[in-house]
């Protein structure tokens, strides 16, 4: 037996490289705290003394905000829910002309931000729009002598939200229908249900958790919207927050309104989490089975085509056509040096935000892999909460602490150096990047986690046993396998930032403009045709993640059928 001090090694001895005991956990905790700053700030105002305006608010507008929010939520639940479930069911169960195209085309309205579709339909359907003009000329009527639905109303807002948010329901419900065991449906048929009854009694109850999750995502977007409700004059929390902050200059009341809005959001998060948990038990099979794809009589086949094409036409094709028409009229004046500057501003900002959001996503995802623990999981879930928090609320939540930080810092530099650096945190792109990271971290985190999940721990070990250092494993195994996921994460956050309106509107530095803000400003000035070029640019870029999403779905289906047993 050798004495350890006499050990002779042919290679330099070195301890198994271990991270400092809680390096990952510590950095993840710090990041989580930073990410949660705006949410903590808003929550803290729940306990702050109410401002003078508060009593006024509760007596006048608050009941209206609550009522309008509830009406919007109910309407979108019915609208987006019925469109999403119907299209998902038809495309997964029946064979009809155009089905293959519609399966992915049904996702296209996701590329259309709600405020842009609202501007487009207003331009088409308003009193001065081409449709009403045509009615007046054809029937020789004056305004007021015929009935026409008012697009700028709460009903119009519900229609707009339903048209662009149903893809959330469609996506999740379709996945749920495809996952269902055919046996369950067949069994119900042998037990005397017709196709219609099996849908209501078996398929829909099995898919219910997915449908609920899809609807809660759509409702989160509805609550987060500012552009549409502001334009349609529907008073909700988001418009109220803008009004109290910028109209009444009351930050405390704005923060308190934000806190109330967050309570709605927390309810939705709970609903979504709960339904996803239930979804686990509803999952009946792991193997993907091709559904029978029943063929229908000819007339019903075309009915299916019409039913599934309608949301695509209304939610994407018509608005895009209108934007194109407007843009052809106006692009000569609108697409100038200033527009190029606007676009490059937007793209640079979005790309910067996508890269910045990557850092905490990577730290949290790797932390969970290297040092899995309850604390790490909690950090990850909490940091991902921002996706549900409306941009307006996040804007208020970052502006208050960073504004205070700037005041304190300026006070200190003046006292110490007699120098005023200005609003270096709250008045620069820094605060925008921070807010975007809070809002969209969930997106990059989910994508990075999915990518990392593909790298089994044994792959690391296999590489180490073949003489790779940790760094080499990272470079030669992780990076190539993750490259696709990282790119996807960057693209999705990029597009989300490009579309984002309310937080950008509040937080952008003085004289700094983006495509989304410009679209909003022009539309608010009733220059809808002039706003079309910027709007079209946003929609065009928005199509990229839709394509990514649909090819990813197609690939995962194809992969499952060819994948051989490797376990």
């Amino acid at each position, binding site marked *: 037996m050798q004495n*350890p001090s006499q050990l*002779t090694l042919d290679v330099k001895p070195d301890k*198994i490289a271990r991270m400092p005991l809680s390096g990952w956990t510590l950095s993840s905790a710090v990041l989580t705290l930073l990410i949660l700053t705006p949410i903590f700030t808003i929550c803290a105002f729940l306990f702050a003394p109410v401002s003078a305006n508060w009593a006024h608010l509760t007596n006048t507008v608050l009941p209206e905000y609550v009522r309008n929010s509830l009406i919007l939520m109910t309407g979108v639940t019915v609208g987006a829910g019925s469109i999403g479930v119907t299209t998902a069911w038809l495309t997964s169960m029946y064979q009809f002309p155009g089905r293959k195209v519609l399966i992915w085309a049904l996702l296209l309205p996701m590329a259309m931000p709600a405020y842009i579709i609202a501007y487009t339909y207003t331009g088409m359907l308003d009193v001065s729009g081409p449709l009403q003009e045509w009615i007046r000329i054809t029937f020789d009527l004056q305004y007021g002598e015929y009935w026409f639905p008012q697009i700028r109303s709460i009903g119009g807002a519900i229609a707009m939200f339903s048209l662009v948010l149903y893809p959330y329901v469609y996506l999740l419900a379709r996945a749920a229908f495809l996952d269902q065991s055919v046996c369950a449906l067949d069994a119900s048929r042998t037990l005397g249900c017709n196709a219609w009854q099996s849908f209501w009694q078996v398929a829909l109850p099995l898919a219910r958790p997915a449908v609920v999750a899809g609807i809660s995502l759509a409702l989160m977007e509805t609550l987060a919207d500012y552009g549409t409700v502001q334009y349609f004059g529907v008073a909700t929390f988001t418009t109220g927050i803008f009004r109290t902050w910028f109209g009444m200059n009351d930050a405390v009341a704005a923060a308190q309104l934000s806190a109330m809005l967050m309570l709605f959001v927390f309810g939705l998060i709970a609903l979504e989490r709960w339904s996803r948990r239930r979804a686990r038990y509803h999952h009946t099979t792991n193997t993907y089975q091709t559904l029978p794809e029943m063929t229908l009589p000819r007339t019903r086949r075309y009915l299916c085509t019409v039913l599934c094409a309608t949301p695509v036409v209304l939610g994407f094709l018509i608005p895009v056509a209108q934007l194109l028409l407007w843009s052809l009229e106006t692009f000569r004046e609108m697409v100038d040096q200033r527009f190029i500057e606007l676009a490059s501003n937007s793209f640079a900002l979005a790309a910067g935000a996508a890269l910045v959001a990557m850092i905490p996503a990577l730290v949290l995802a790797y932390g969970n892999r290297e040092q899995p623990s309850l604390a790490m999981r909690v950090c990850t879930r909490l940091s991902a909460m921002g996706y549900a928090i409306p941009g307006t609320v996040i804007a208020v939540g970052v502006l208050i602490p960073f504004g205070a930080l700037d005041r304190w810092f300026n006070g200190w530099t003046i006292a110490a150096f007699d120098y005023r650096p200005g609003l270096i945190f709250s008045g620069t792109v820094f605060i925008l990047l921070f807010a975007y990271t809070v809002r969209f971290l969930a997106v990059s985190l989910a994508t990075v986690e999915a990518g990392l999940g593909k790298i089994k721990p*044994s792959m690391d070990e296999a590489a180490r046993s073949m*003489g790779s250092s940790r760094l080499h494993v990272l470079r030669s*195994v992780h990076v190539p396998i993750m490259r696709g996921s990282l790119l996807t994460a960057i693209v999705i956050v990029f597009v989300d930032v490009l579309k984002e309106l309310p937080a950008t509107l509040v937080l952008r530095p003085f004289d700094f403009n983006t495509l989304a803000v410009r679209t909003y400003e022009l539309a608010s000035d009733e220059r809808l045709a002039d706003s079309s070029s910027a709007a079209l640019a946003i929609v065009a870029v928005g199509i990229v993640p839709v394509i990514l999403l649909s090819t990813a779905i197609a690939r995962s289906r194809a992969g499952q059928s060819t994948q051989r047993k*490797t*376990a």
Partner: protein
Amino acid sequence: MTEHLKLDGISVALDGHPIVRDVSFSLESGQIGSLLGPSGCGKTTLLRAIAGFVQPNTGTIHLRDNPIASADHSLTPEHRNIGMVFQDLALFPHLTVAGNVAFGIRDQSKTVRMARVTELLELTGLEDYADSYPHELSGGQQQRVALVRAMAPQPHVLLLDEPFSGQDIELREQLAREVSGILRHDGITALLVTHDQMEAFAFADVIGVMAAGELHQWDSAYNLYHRPADRFVADFIGQGVFIRGSVMDNGHLQTDLGVIAGELIGAYPPETEVELLVRPDDVIHHDESPQIATVVEKSFRGADHLYTLELPGPTRVLCLAPSHHDHAIGESIGIKLEMDHLVVFACETD
């Protein structure tokens, strides 16, 4: 020292739970060993300690006379030159078959690398798949890629962590023999972890039986079966039953099956109450034998029948009879015991 890989009193604890306790064994150069035991017995942890993914709490591991791991020193996995084939194979999905195999020899010149990859793929009949990706191969082919990938850097020792467990049962033994043949062809020292004894028998020269973190016996397959070191090994390896008996003055055994003569393994004084291990092949079906037993269960296994027989007492034994000796359940048949050496263990006193 002739030992190529040597473990000395290795104990491993994970999160404070002892997983491996005081294990010592060694492999000679070119020898193929196997660690056999039920799941959760610590065999995989022991393998990971040899590979360098966990550090032992006590003991030392020597590789070619160099200490590679002890409680206070541990060489990183990449510096050990120990190859490993993983249970889930862990092939890199982003690399082709050739890319996977060349991963461990990336520092060598391109010509050397190509030559080694070609050689290994030819050895395993995968030469046509060099440019395929892992997901395009069948399970058996993936298996062979994982094996040659680990072999490519010519590791001092190759570790295999239940690499056949994902395969169909019928294929496992054949694969184990195939892989064993490839390793022997290259003269590689290897250690296989498995819970399947037929796999271990087909693969290894020397087998260690592990249970609850302890190594019970490190021996040849023949000895594990015929001279098990303790009751656990006797139970775990092969089939058989224990029948009670007592040691007679002349060293024979007095049992319910009569007096059994044979070489007693181990020293037991007369009058000791013992249990005798009776393997199915110790019980011979013989029509003229005065010893009669009743068939209680039978299973036809192609080349032979495995009968469960009941003797007065009542004692049950297993009997392996040629295939054409077909008897019905309830029938009485003559048997006799043929045992050269008697494997006995002292009765556990309650």
